[in-house]
């Protein structure tokens, strides 16, 4: 059984690396570094503004710890055919799940430790927690997370509820209470309770798993959902097969299409515009990047960083529009329309210019808010316009020609 786990894990990791390699392409790494830099810059500025212990300090620490404790769940790597082919092996699956739990513990530990570390200056300054308390709290959350993962395994064996409520809810409620007690009274409370809970979970797990029955359907469904969430995340950056994005009607945005006359030359503009607005994937990407950019531009008052953010994000949105064209071109029916190839590219260029223009206008407002009508502000706005023209008129059409 542990061999099966090892084999599954190997395959799973290969898959993940494949996607991660696609995500961490040059463009993304560049954007990522700038983003981290900008956030770090903002955070250190923000810390400087805190001069005394604040009433909101502790609640923020509690909320952040609670949220990070939700990250990560047991990756069972179960597959659909298992419920048919491995049904006879059911009793042996306990070892398999133990290996799964151990593997799944690594990521939450890193996440909790990182958040604890990054939060420490804030917790020290704003929440008035001592360094020792912060360390104790972080360790406490880590141990508590181990216990949570064990309870998740009980769930696979049908022990999901306790007194009518799901164990997950109990455990999360308890965590809120414990975090409040430990941050306001003594930071040892969480660590002690978490250790007791973990001891209980470990000692009970064997008997629960052996007396319980493996809930194949729900366990597989859960794993599928987990994989889907991961893939949907990857899908923001690259094409993931099998992830279909949601379509929404968004009737209130129909006014956007009013300017598109219904004539042969606009066939593809008609299609591209509606697809872009209604497909969550593309409008979502555009909204996210535009909003992040606007927020960053509102916060950063360094000329060079703002200049890079303005240019980079317009380029990124333009770059990310390319897959949309590719996806539409895969539709068989559009290939037999009596419409020229060049018209398709022309229409897509119109869409991308419009989208980038909207983004540019939004970012221009953010820049003018921060820099006013100064030379620096106007230089950044002009640089954004230059990137817009370059990406919209030269870069995208040339890239699209390669797709055919």
């Amino acid at each position: 059984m542990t061999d099966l786990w090892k084999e599954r894990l190997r395959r799973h990791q290969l898959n993940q690396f494949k996607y991660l390699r696609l995500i961490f392409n040059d463009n993304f790494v560049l954007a990522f570094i700038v983003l981290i830099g900008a956030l770090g810059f903002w955070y250190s500025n923000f810390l400087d503004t805190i001069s005394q212990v604040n009433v909101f300090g502790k609640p923020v620490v509690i909320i952040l710890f609670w949220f990070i404790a939700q990250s990560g769940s047991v990756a069972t790597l179960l597959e659909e055919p298992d419920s048919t082919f491995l049904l006879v092996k059911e009793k042996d699956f306990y070892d398999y799940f133990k290996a799964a739990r151990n593997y799944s513990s690594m990521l939450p530990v890193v996440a909790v430790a990182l958040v604890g570390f990054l939060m420490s200056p804030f917790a020290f300054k704003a929440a008035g927690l001592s360094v020792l308390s912060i360390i104790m709290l972080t360790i406490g959350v880590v141990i508590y997370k181990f216990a949570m993962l064990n309870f998740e395994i009980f769930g696979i064996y049908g022990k999901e509820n306790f007194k009518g409520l799901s164990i997950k809810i109990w455990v999360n409620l308890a965590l809120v209470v414990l975090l409040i007690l430990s941050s306001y009274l003594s930071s040892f409370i969480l660590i002690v309770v978490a250790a007791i809970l973990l001891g209980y979970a470990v000692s009970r797990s064997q008997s629960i798993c052996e007396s319980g029955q493996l809930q194949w359907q729900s366990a597989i469904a859960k794993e599928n959902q987990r994989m889907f969430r991961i893939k949907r995340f990857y899908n923001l950056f690259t094409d993931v097969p099998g992830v279909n994005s949601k379509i929404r009607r968004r009737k209130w945005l129909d006014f956007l299409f009013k300017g598109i006359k219904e004539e042969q030359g606009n066939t593809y503009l008609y299609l591209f515009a509606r697809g872009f607005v209604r497909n969550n994937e593309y409008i979502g990407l555009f909204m996210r990047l535009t909003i992040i950019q606007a927020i960053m531009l509102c916060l950063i008052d360094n000329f060079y960083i703002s200049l890079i953010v303005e240019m980079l994000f317009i380029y990124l949105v333009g770059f990310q529009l390319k897959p949309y064209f590719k996806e539409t071109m895969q539709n068989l029916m559009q290939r037999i329309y009596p419409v020229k190839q060049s018209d398709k590219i022309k229409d897509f260029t119109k869409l991308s210019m419009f989208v980038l223009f909207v983004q540019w206008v939004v970012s221009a407002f953010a820049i003018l808010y921060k820099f006013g009508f100064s030379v620096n502000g106007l230089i950044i706005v002009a640089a954004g316009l230059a990137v817009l023209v370059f990406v919209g008129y030269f870069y995208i059409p040339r890239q699209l020609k390669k797709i055919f």
Partner: protein
Amino acid sequence: MTLELKELTGGYGQVSVLKKETFTVEDGQVVGLIGLNGAGKSTTIKHIIGLLTPRGGQILIDGLSLQDNVEEYRKKIAYVPEMPILYSELTLKEHINLTIMAYGLDHDKTWEKAHELLKTFRLDNKLDWFPQNFSKGMKQKVMIVCAFMTDARLFIIDEPFTGLDPLAVNDLLNIVEEKKQKGCSILMSTHVLATVQDHADKFILLNHGQVRADGTLDELKEKFDMQNGNLDDIYIKMSNEDQ
């Protein structure tokens, strides 16, 4: 409208599925394209509508090939695929608008035709639906409406009878008959031999990417020496020739 295939050779990648396939579809003819799975029916259709490029031979519609004038050639054809292909982001109404735009049709006149067809297929109250809300049969009906409202002269229908309810099959056959009266030609591939036997003027029997035989039912009976047989019997006899 006449469709001519002259010694068409082609297929996917390096493998030639079709080997010197030759047949014609005349003005106002309904032609059934018949063959086993993998005989080359869909491949033939993909070559005719221009999704695949022939490796040899010629395809002419009214003497015009795809290379001569892509837009003119494509305007002459309407295609209903075996698996419905719709735009997930467009409503039914917008699919019709898009088709009108793509083929450069007259908006009001075409909508009149479309309304009639939508009514026939009981889709006229679903104009604002998205494809994800349609069943497979409904999607197929949308494809049929979008194809038959155009001014095409050649209608190519891949497997029209599977997935449609009996009422819709009947409606489709009526529409085909109507188009035929107007001088259009229809080429349909199918496995439902009993239906096609009653409604097609001519049959093309494909085997291993070649035309094994073609002609009216009577001509086929003669060729296979089965005076009392129906299309089913002939088909089975052809399939057994390999063994």
